[in-house]
């Protein structure tokens, strides 16, 4: 997987019928830096993240991914990114290993059991635990979502309130891990209202609400 994805977005607006979520948002996420998106509840942080990762289309504006100076086609975005978000769930009937092996297979990595095991151990989950995710605590489910996002070693990570439901040790681990991502030249876009998480990045986009 190639590193170094730059994401630029300019004059992005989103409206659902008559409800305006945000009018004009611009910014840029660059490799090796964390771009922090902040704003009060309902200001559209998660919506902006969904637009930036290609799950939603904006009402207006332009989003461009660049890799080594070349524009990445929209259809190819998904290969470069990993997402952790409260509104995105893993399969609760499957256990953690089955979930990761499924995502590895649909990403064209084959079953990749060693990589799945490595990711689960990285986030502090037991790969041999055969309990379906339905039986997990919210913190464990959050750890699994993080493992899923890291599975294919993406160059670009979208993190929407990644520390929610994590215990203090989990939050410490996450902070260290994101610091390591910066050093590795990964691009990170973080949407949060947590004061501690806001300090992870030096570039900020503040939504008015």
């Amino acid at each position, binding site marked *: 997987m190639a590193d170094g994805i730059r994401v630029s977005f300019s004059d992005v607006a989103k409206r659902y019928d008559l409800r305006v979520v945000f009018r004009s948002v611009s910014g840029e996420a660059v490799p090796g830096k964390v771009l922090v998106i902040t704003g009060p509840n309902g200001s559209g942080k998660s919506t902006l993240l969904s637009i930036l990762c290609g*799950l939603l289309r904006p009402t207006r504006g332009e989003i461009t991914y660049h890799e080594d100076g070349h524009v990445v086609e929209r259809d190819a975005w998904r290969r470069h990114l990993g997402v952790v978000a409260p509104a995105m769930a893993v399969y609760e*009937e499957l256990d953690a290993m089955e979930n990761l092996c499924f995502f590895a297979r649909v990403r064209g990595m084959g079953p990749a059991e060693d990589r799945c095991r490595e990711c689960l151990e990285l986030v502090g989950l037991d790969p041999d635990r055969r309990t379906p995710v339905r039986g997990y605590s919210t913190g464990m489910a959050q750890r699994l979502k993080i493992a899923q996002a890291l599975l294919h070693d993406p160059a670009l990570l979208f993190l929407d309130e990644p520390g929610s439901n994590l215990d203090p040790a989990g939050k410490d681990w996450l902070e260290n891990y994101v610091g390591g991502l910066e050093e590795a030249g990964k691009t990170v876009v973080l949407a949060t209202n947590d004061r501690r998480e806001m300090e992870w990045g030096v570039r900020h986009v503040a939504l008015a609400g």
Partner: protein
Amino acid sequence: MWRWLAEAMAVAAKDLRTEFRTRVAINSLGLFALTVLAAVSYTVGPYRIAAEDRPFLLAVLLWIVIFFAALAGLDRSFVKEEESHTAPLLRLAASPSAVWFGKLVFNLLVIYMLMAILVPLYCILMGYTIVMVWEFVLILALGGYALAVITTIVAAIIARALTRGALFSVLSLPLLLPLMIFLIQGTAGVAEGMPEVVSSTVRAVLSMGGIMTIVSAALFPVVWSD
């Protein structure tokens, strides 16, 4: 090509695994089919229909049971992804065509499982004699495929709607009605031993299945992504 096929089969295998653990779709289809079959066999039975009407009327009843059982559960594969909020991660991880084909394979397997249990039971309980057995199996296989293709794309369309329960039947029936008419004629043909009716049915159902496959494959990426 092989990589794409492996991705699609991963989607189908995941759906089968989650379905066998929850049994929502299988229970919906199975209970509907068995209830209607029990009601029909008890009230109509093998001897209440005049001998000359039996091939046609029993074909009508058979396909009514299969089609309405399918409508009771085949939307689950897409609706469940939306209801349990797993659809966004699937959209980001898998190619749209692999998702479509994987879901189609899953629905096809569910229909074939339903047919494998329902049709022999129906033939025994209703005393339905089939003259051209292999042609009957071919009509069932082709009909099941066309049914799976249509219900898969309609399920994808309605999955994000708020009134999806009602919409699935409303949108499916106009597409399924011509198919149902062809399949009833073909099934009556195999019961009576009329090769010319059977061959025209096979051609018609093959055409419908082929056209719907091409239309669905082209339409699905738009339905799934936007």
